[in-house]
């Protein structure tokens, strides 16, 4: 198993943001986490990095307990995140952004890694010397994904990658997620409000509500479930 969260609780001061989360991700899976705004999806992802730390429960990654590992050491173990809102380094060039993804990696791999990322996103190669902040939203998202891939992660976390993108880019982003999984064997944990797309691309999914998992199943099961349909699909997303 790649990732196992057992009864994880997390707090922001007095706010009890995660209330006993149990989530599993198997090697080679795409797992999605859907839920309304404020349900705790981003908190769940950041708790893997100890921001906020788990106040109760255990997080096991790749067979090792990482519950108390300092945040800056997490990515070294093979977890990379594409954070909510992309958070690229606006004033730095595309190439510098990609380089930042390898902050701790072996520089010998740099050329091979960047080749891989450029092959996946040719636009990044074209724009290598351009300021990242001048890219379009969709291109910035690709850059954020490319940057995460530069560290050769075993598990890729994506926090609402389709947020705020034009429909054509939304399609492309989900295509990329599927390609990463099928062609590169990447394990993905995907957070989305766009439940329809997310459940179609995912093998399995969880529904999060007020810091608790209220439903779990395969992508198909959740797509067909009346609760999910009522709350997340017919609502218009």
């Amino acid at each position, binding site marked *: 198993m790649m990732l196992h969260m057992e009864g994880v609780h997390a707090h922001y001061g007095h706010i009890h943001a995660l209330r006993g989360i149990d989530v599993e991700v198997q090697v080679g899976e795409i797992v999605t986490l859907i839920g309304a705004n404020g349900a705790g999806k981003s908190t769940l992802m950041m708790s893997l990095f100890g921001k906020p730390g788990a106040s109760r429960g255990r997080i096991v990654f790749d067979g090792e307990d990482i519950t108390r590992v300092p945040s*800056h050491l997490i990515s070294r173990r093979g977890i990379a995140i594409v954070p909510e809102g992309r958070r690229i*380094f606006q004033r730095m060039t595309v190439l510098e952004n990609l380089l930042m993804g390898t902050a701790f990696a072996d520089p010998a791999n740099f*050329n091979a890694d960047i080749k891989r990322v450029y092959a996946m996103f040719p636009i990044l190669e074209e724009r290598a010397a351009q300021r990242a902040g001048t890219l379009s939203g969709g291109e910035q998202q690709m850059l954020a994904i490319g940057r995460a891939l530069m560290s050769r992660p075993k598990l890729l976390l994506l926090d609402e990658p389709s947020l705020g993108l034009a429909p054509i880019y939304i399609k492309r982003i989900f295509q990329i997620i599927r390609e990463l999984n099928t062609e590169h064997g990447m394990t993905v944990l995907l957070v989305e409000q766009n439940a329809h797309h997310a459940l179609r691309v995912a093998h399995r999914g969880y529904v999060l509500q007020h810091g608790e998992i209220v439903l779990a199943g395969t992508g198909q099961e959740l797509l067909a479930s009346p609760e999910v349909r009522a709350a997340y699909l017919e609502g218009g997303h």
Partner: protein
Amino acid sequence: MSAVIIARHARTPAERFKDAAWVAFVALLLGIPMVGLTTVDEGGALTVQTRFGMLAIFVGVSFAGRFIFRWIMDQVRGRRAAKSAVAKADRTPLAIRVIGWAVLGASVALPIMFSENRYVIDTATTVLIYVMLGWGLNVVVGLAGLLDLGYVAFYAVGAYTYALLFSHFGWTFWEALPVAGAMAATFGILLGYPILRLRGDYLAIVTLGFGEIIRVILVNWTELSNGPNGIGSIPRPTLFGLPFERNPAEGTQSFATFFGLDFSGMHRIIFLYYLILVLALLTNVFVSRLRKLPVGRAWEALREDEIACKAMGMNVTNVKLSAFAIGAMLGGFAGVFFAARQGFISPESFTFTESATILAIVVLGGMGSQLGVVLAALVLVLLPELGRNFSEYRMLMFGTAMVLIMVWKPSGLLASREPTIRLNKAAATGGEA
């Protein structure tokens, strides 16, 4: 100006020689009235004297400078041509490079042109102190994005470290310089630790407080710092052990006797000018190098987005502390120079106004731009000087100019940013063997 070769192809050495010769010729024409002839006050009557030696140096420097400049430009251009991956966008415009070299050339030539004008060289020395301080603070504010309103504290630590090391142990400028830098860096880390979690306004307030605390300690801890009376008779730096004195101690050489020159007070002034020029240039090279190393890129990434940095596995604590320490160290070096130049320091020299001026230089210059700092330092030091004639309107002029610059160029005089890495397209896509 067709004689000055603007060929697009790579220049041959002969072309470069010819190009430089033309520039030297122009320098000669300009130099005869500016450098070659000088007026001397002889018994109340002005007489014109020739200074052909000085003129020859001036022309020689122009020739060599142009030759080297062209050669470097060709190297840069040649290397660029090889790197096809570099897109046109966001490359430092040629104009900025040219201005940079022109400013450097002018600062090297300045004491030659104004060798008798103490006021000009003194003012230029002050400008260079602020340039160096601006480059130091630029690491913290411009690169790492940490708003520091108490930078003068490190300047003070450097100055007092030298003053105290001299008055207690008789250390010389050159012995005290590295120690004072290390001392200032230590203070940078001491300040950095408690404020690691602060950002923006809160960070600014605490650093402001730190700057004031250091000053208040210097005022009140009389046993250490001699309080408001300050510390005096701090020795001037020597040139490889040669002091700039009229009457060197028995059996020793001074600069003037060693080189067989008549003693002149200007020697020391010019030496101090070149010394701060070298210190400032070293600062520039050092910071430019750091920028291209992982630590420098980490500073800039931190300025852009701290959360993303953490997620990328960056140890944000160390990155911040390194920025504080290096910025502080550079401020400390400038402080040692300041103490040596003034010969006397007191807490009066290290008030908040100084921090504000240095910060204004960084912000007006365009956060993170090295050349921008130079231009801003020129504006901020020269403007009040020029305004001396309008003494009561001086600060008004100063303020108006700052407001105008911020209206006209909200992101500073030079907001362009030089990328820290370029990659050969061939290398990335498999052309590299």
